[in-house]
């Protein structure tokens, strides 16, 4: 009998999000084993049959060993493919190399495109991701890509945790203006913009504020917080402009390098990240960090994908 059910797979590290998703779907993660050679090569085995099943591989890619995670994912996808899975969906909340999406210099690699090609080559049939740095990355794929939004979850968080009548939404750069404006519209708030000039990657030089933030709770909204240099500097600029307090809400809290130090030393009251990137250990080091759980969105999208239902509902609503 052909049964076609969901199988959830996750690599052996950072299983937190995958376990939450599994719990919400009432499933267990499939028994798998990732074996790392002493040389660093990985091999992978699945302890259950996946023949004709609907596979979802949930991978959280944090800062640090990105390439290891990517190669593990590729090996996992390929393993499922050769084990005759019906459909393989990579759930990559934080898409790796999303910022290398264009040829910004001569001979620069478009690594996001390479990642897309690699996933397809390995045998991935569908990709679910969240708040892509550039939504054009969807076009790099030959397979369907569902770009979920963290916005509904963020809206809920702001409504529940922040006195938002006094708040103003800030975009820390011109690129994020659209995202911030959309959020401001949803909450019926004002919106301001910080213009920054970036000299090199991970470094900022100058910042100019456009808009009035006097006596407001500023909510900086961004898709990614890496070293948090931008956020810390933005907070300073906002407080110089007589803001009451500054909170940052980011989708992907990569928090690499000196991020924790930067946040602790900054004037930010709080940095809220979604659970797309694992940063549980960092929360112990930094009391200013808070988390928005997005497992509900992912679980619901997996359920809908499996049943062939529309997932556009999730673009506006946050499931409980």
């Amino acid at each position, binding site marked *: 009998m052909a049964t076609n059910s969901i199988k959830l797979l996750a690599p*052996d590290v950072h299983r937190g999000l995958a376990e939450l998703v599994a719990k919400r779907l009432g499933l267990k993660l499939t*028994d798998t*084993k990732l*074996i*790392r*050679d*002493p*040389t*660093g*090569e*990985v*091999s*992978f*085995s*699945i*302890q*259950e*049959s996946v023949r004709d099943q609907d596979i979802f591989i949930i991978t959280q890619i944090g*800062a*640090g*060993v*990105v*390439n*290891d995670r*990517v*190669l593990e994912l*590729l*090996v*996992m996808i*390929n*393993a499922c493919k*050769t*084990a005759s899975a019906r459909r393989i969906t990579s759930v990559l909340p934080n898409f*790796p*190399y999303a*910022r*290398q999406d264009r*040829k910004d*210099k*001569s*001979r*620069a*690699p*478009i*690594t996001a*495109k*390479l990642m897309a*090609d*690699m996933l*397809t*080559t*390995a045998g991935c049939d569908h990709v679910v991701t969240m708040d892509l740095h550039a939504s054009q990355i969807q076009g790099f794929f030959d397979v369907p890509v569902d770009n979920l939004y963290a916005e509904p979850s963020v809206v809920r968080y702001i409504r529940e945790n922040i006195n938002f009548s006094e708040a103003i939404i800030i975009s820390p750069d011109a690129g994020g203006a659209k995202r911030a404006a959309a959020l401001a519209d949803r909450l019926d708030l004002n919106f301001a913009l910080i213009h920054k000039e970036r000299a090199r*990657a*991970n470094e900022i030089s100058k910042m100019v504020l456009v808009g009035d933030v006097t006596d407001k709770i500023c909510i900086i909204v961004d898709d990614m917080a*890496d*070293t948090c240099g931008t956020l810390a500097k933005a907070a300073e600029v906002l407080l110089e402009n007589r803001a009451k307090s500054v909170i940052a809400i980011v989708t992907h809290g*990569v928090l*690499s*390098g000196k991020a924790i130090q930067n946040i602790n030393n900054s004037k930010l009251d709080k940095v809220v990240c979604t659970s797309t990137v694992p940063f549980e250990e960092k929360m112990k080091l930094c009391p200013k960090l808070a988390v928005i759980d997005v497992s509900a969105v992912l679980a619901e999208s997996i359920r809908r994908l499996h049943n062939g239902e529309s997932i556009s509902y999730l673009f506006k609503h946050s499931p409980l």
Partner: protein
Amino acid sequence: MNNIVVFGGSSHPSLVDKICGNLGVKPSQVKLGKFSNGETSISIGESVREKDVYVIQSGCGHVNDNFIELLILLNACKTASASRVTAVMPYFCYSRQPDIPYTAKGAPLISKPKESYTFESVPGTPVSSMTSTQAPTGPSHDALNAGNDTENKKHDGPTNLHQPKPVRFAGDGAIHKSPSQSRIPMVPERKENSSELGSLFNANNAGYKLWVAQAGTLVANLLTTAGADHVITMDLHDSQFQGFFDIPVDNLYCKPIAHSYIQYNIPEYKEAVLVSPDAGGAKRAASLADALGISFALIHKEKRSQLPKGPPDASLTSGGGAAISGKPLIASMSSLALNSQEMKTSGSNSRYVQTTMLVGDVRNKTCILVDDLVDTSYTITRAAKLLKDQGATKVYALITHGVFSGDALNRVSLSAIDKIVVTNSVPQHKTVKFLGKDRVHVLDVSQIFGESIRRIHNGESISMLFELGW
């Protein structure tokens, strides 16, 4: 050399310099690094438009980082309108197909990494626990005394010294003492508890036979996807690997340099024996032996479910080697349980015995072990031990890719190998530092790679590289 651009990855800069030196070009400008979040960043400092690009990256060090760096480099060159992009991988990572041997219940024979070991436990000691006629003084002593013994025995009578006989012995409880299979991937430390492992494969889900993903095709496809038009590598572990690619793969051999090393550096090499440590490498060793015109021996590993019958002393009268070492050759094996869990559940039925047979005569000879890859070094150290026990005077190990992961170097340094000869397809500074200059000789493969790049660039045949000695 017009229109040629050579980039080096971060894995092995000294080899890149040597290859470029052979080609008479300079390595092209490329900045390799990482963003703060761990993503690889590269920027190419020279135009590659309509150029013939070679990217050199060995699959060593941090394998995954280096492999992805290679893919990004290839892709960057391709998107920057290079006319042809060639991946040069002196050591091809993921070329071993991971194979996990199974027990009757479908549980993989995975051994836990050991924290400490002694030389004795490394190559399964061939001393029988039942030998009572002679008190063995220990295997290392035997190896040393082997010569003297031979002198004595010669007077005793005909022991048909020159008839090679298959010699069989089994490690004494070797499997649970030390990982017996050299190429089994290790389980990470997390699975410390073997009962946890056992419970995964208990009778309830024994119906589904565990299998391991084969990364070979995947790696080949990834290289093609990234934009490689051509791949150059050396001594691929499986020559079938070439079939995974849709693009041409040139598999170079280090045989010519190995050949000339043996000819010029091993005294009286005509009397030496080339030994393959496993059946998989037999062809490689045999072809080298043929080229040199010297004899060849093979070490064969076998897993048997039954203990060989008969009293252990029986072989004393017949085996030539036995007479010399003064020990029963079919050592009576204490039954080897694959793991303790397995023993409890299945009782005496699933008792396996690992036997190792040496086919060929090595007595009083110099032995040259030939293998393409040494990673954990279990195979090669055990083989060296066996050869010494069988009376070999000196053991050389001739290896193409010396990866030496984990505590492999430690193991090699304690082993019976007298000299390691290894190529620089993987950086060998650590090996030389650890084992000392006298015990390690590094063969330079840059000339082979340089010449093949030159020929491929000029559209000449490279097949003569396989025959020509260096």
